[in-house]
Structures are given as structure tokens and as C-alpha cells.
């Protein structure tokens, strides 16, 4: 139950799929023909992967907007993400990143350039994406109010599964997501450790 005077947090039922270039081309062709095209939505994202939250500063480079998002659970810790999000000016992205870094979150920061094209297909928003970390992948999302019933959540998840199945895409299980995310974070942390300590302050 949200506190009095605050807006309810939307719940994002989100599932993901990773696939190869051939599947990407086939999926895109299907969506171009049958889905509503919501346009390109390329982004540069600063992720702060915190123990039980995901904080993001998103520079929507294609749309010319920016936002800050706090997801109250991490990828791989359940499909439902309550999230708090608000827009900021694109010019303020560096300042937002500087503030979060100054608050001590910098060791948890990753950056990614995401190429993204959004579609709506049978009541599901589908973001067809590519990033260095994930390769070709897609996010399937349905937004619900935070007081959505368990039945509504199950129905949303089923709607996503059906859409993905119809499009010939295999969704990742929660375990696959958790394993992939942990592996990525481990590699990223090792890279940062090497930079931080072997090049603590390189003589220049």
C-alpha cells in the first residue's frame, strides 16, 4: 500500500530473451509486419548495480530526453520490478552521474550503449536491443499498477510468454537471468579491480 499522498509505484512485469543475429533478423521482420512501431530509442545508460536495487541514469540519445530510474529489485530477482522514475534534462545527465558517484556509488557503476527499437505486439511492449554485454536481446514488458492482483500479474506474464512463443523467441528463466547477470558483474568487477588497483593513479 503506498503511503498517503504518494503515487503508487507501477509494477513492471519484465522478461528477457537473448538470441543470435539470425533470430534477431527474423524477429524484427515479424515485428515490422505485425506490430505497432514505436520507433528507435537508442540510449546511453549509467547503471549502478546495488545489492538489492538497480539505479539508472538514462540518456535517451535518440529521443533527446533523459531520466533517473530506481528499480527496487535487481535483474534475476523476480520478474516484477517496482520502480521510481523521473525525467531530467539531458544536459543534467553528467551532473546526475557525478552526484551518484560522489555519494559513493561509483564502484557499482557500469555504462552501456544500447541500440533499441520499440514495438507493441498483442498488448506487450517489446524492446529489440543490442548492447556489448548482452548482444542481441529483447525485453518484453507489461506495466501494472502496484496494487495489481496476483491474477493480473500471472495474466501479464502469460501474455508475455504467449507473445514470445508466437514470435519464435525463447524467454530466459529467472535462473538463467541471475546466472548471466552475476557472470557479467563478476567480469566487470574484475576489470574495475584491475583498473582501480593496478592503475590507482597512473603516473601521467
Amino acid at each position, binding site marked *: 500500500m503506498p503511503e498517503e499522498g504518494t503515487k503508487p509505484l507501477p509494477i513492471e512485469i519484465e522478461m528477457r530473451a537473448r538470441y543470435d543475429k539470425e533470430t534477431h533478423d527474423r524477429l524484427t521482420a515479424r515485428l515490422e509486419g505485425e506490430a505497432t512501431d514505436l520507433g528507435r530509442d537508442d540510449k546511453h545508460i549509467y547503471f549502478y548495480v546495488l545489492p538489492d536495487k538497480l539505479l539508472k541514469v538514462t540518456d535517451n540519445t535518440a529521443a533527446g530526453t533523459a531520466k533517473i530510474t530506481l528499480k527496487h529489485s535487481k535483474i534475476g530477482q523476480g520478474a516484477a520490478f517496482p520502480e521510481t522514475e523521473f525525467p531530467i534534462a539531458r544536459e543534467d545527465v553528467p551532473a546526475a552521474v557525478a552526484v551518484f558517484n560522489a555519494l559513493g556509488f561509483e564502484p557499482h557503476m557500469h555504462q552501456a550503449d544500447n541500440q533499441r527499437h520499440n514495438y507493441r505486439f498483442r498488448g506487450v511492449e517489446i524492446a529489440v536491443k543490442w548492447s556489448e554485454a548482452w548482444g542481441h536481446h529483447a525485453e518484453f514488458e507489461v506495466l501494472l499498477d502496484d496494487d495489481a492482483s496476483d491474477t493480473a500479474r500471472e495474466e501479464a506474464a502469460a501474455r508475455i510468454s504467449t507473445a514470445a512463443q508466437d514470435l519464435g523467441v525463447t524467454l530466459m528463466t529467472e535462473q538463467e537471468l541471475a546466472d548471466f547477470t552475476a557472470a557479467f558483474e563478476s567480469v566487470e568487477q574484475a576489470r574495475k579491480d584491475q583498473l*582501480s588497483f593496478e592503475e590507482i*593513479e597512473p603516473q601521467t
Partner: protein
Amino acid sequence: MSTTPPADSLVELAARKQLPHHQFTDHATVRWIEANRPDFPDSVTSALRATSQRLVYRSAIPTVWMANPQLADSLHGVRHAMRTATLAALLADADDLNEDDTATLVIAAAVHDCRRVHDKDDRGHGARAAIWLTDNADTVWAHFHMAPTPHRIVSVATAVRLHDVPYDVFAPDDLTDYARTRHITDLLKAADALDRYRLPKLSWWPDPSRIRAAAFTSLRPTAFELVVASEAAHLAGIDSADAVLKALEQRGLIT
């Protein structure tokens, strides 16, 4: 008495690759620095010229200039700023820089790390400091009792921006800027490097092969002694600015 540094000393943390974000020196680390004194030849450093002495006094920059005031007493705080400013003035003397260029160099040395947010590899802090300096030029030059001319501002900002960019990765824009402020930039990098004796790992100490300043080698003993004396004074309870000034007096650099 145990000769093993305590587990939370910087020198031990560095050995374990567990240095914290914010790093403050400690008795064990200063003892370790002293114990690893390089085999320097004897050298004598003359007192700074009077105008440089006045600038070095002012190199105790206000904490409000710092992006993160937590760093005021850290490895990149006021003591590092003042020692770098002093070494910059000595390098300027050795290269016969005129007073205006010396002032430009000393001001650059005083503010070069002021926009750091932590004591690790804080990439881009030079660029941030250059932007901040340009935005606050009136305040900065007034602090040094000088007037900010466009040439002075550009020179300091460029040297500060390039101080944390290795020569071998200069981009075309960096090379263009460097060509305009080559001497100031070289001496700022050298002064900053000379103060690396404060760092808690031998492999991080000054590396002459990366330096483009003729007097670098001859100033190493002075740089080392300034680190030991001022860090010890600070640990004895003296504030950062006074700790450096006391070390400068002991070495006869200021009168």
C-alpha cells in the same frame, strides 16, 4: 615493537589491493616510506624566490573549492596540493621561467586535483578541474592576489586538464592544446609525479622515464623529504597547511 605494519595501514591495504576510496596516511605508512628512502645523491635546494614563496603560502586552497571536502586531508588533499605547488615553483626556477609563467604553473599545481571525488584512479578529474577553474577564475586568481587574464586562464586550465592524461594517449585535440602550453604542462606533470613518494607502494613512486622536465631527477631528494616531514607533522596533530609550511621551513625553502 612489531615491525609489521598494521593490517589497516595504507601500505598493507595497497599490498592486498584493498585500498579504500578515500585514503589517509598513517604512522605505519610514513615509517615504511622513510625505511624505503632511495639512495639519493646529496643535494641542496635553494630557498624559493620571494614571489614564489607568497604563491606557495596561498596554495593551501580553501576546502570549498574541493568537489569532495572529505579529501582535504587525504592523499590528494591540501598537503599534496601545497607540495606540488612548491615542487612546481622549484622546477620553474630551474627552467628560468619568468614570474608570470611561474605563477601560472603554481596556481595550476595548487588546483590540479581539487575536483577529485576519491583517491583512486579518478579518471577525468583533470578535465573537471579545468572546467571548474574556468568557471571560478575570478575567485581563484583573487585568492592568489592576481588578475585572471584570458591567457593565464587558458594556460592553467589546459595544463590541469592534461595533467591526468598520459602523453602516449593524447588525442589530436590534446596535442593541439599541449602545443600551446607545453612547458607549463610538462612541469605540472613533473611536479605532480615528484610527490608520488607519498603513495604506499614502491612501484607507484616517481618514474623519470615518463617525465619531460630537466630538473626532475635533481629534485627527487627534496620531494622525498617534503613528503616524510609534512606527513609526519600532520600525523603529529598539525593541520595540513601548517604541516607543509613547517616542512618547507625546515628545508629552508621558505623563510
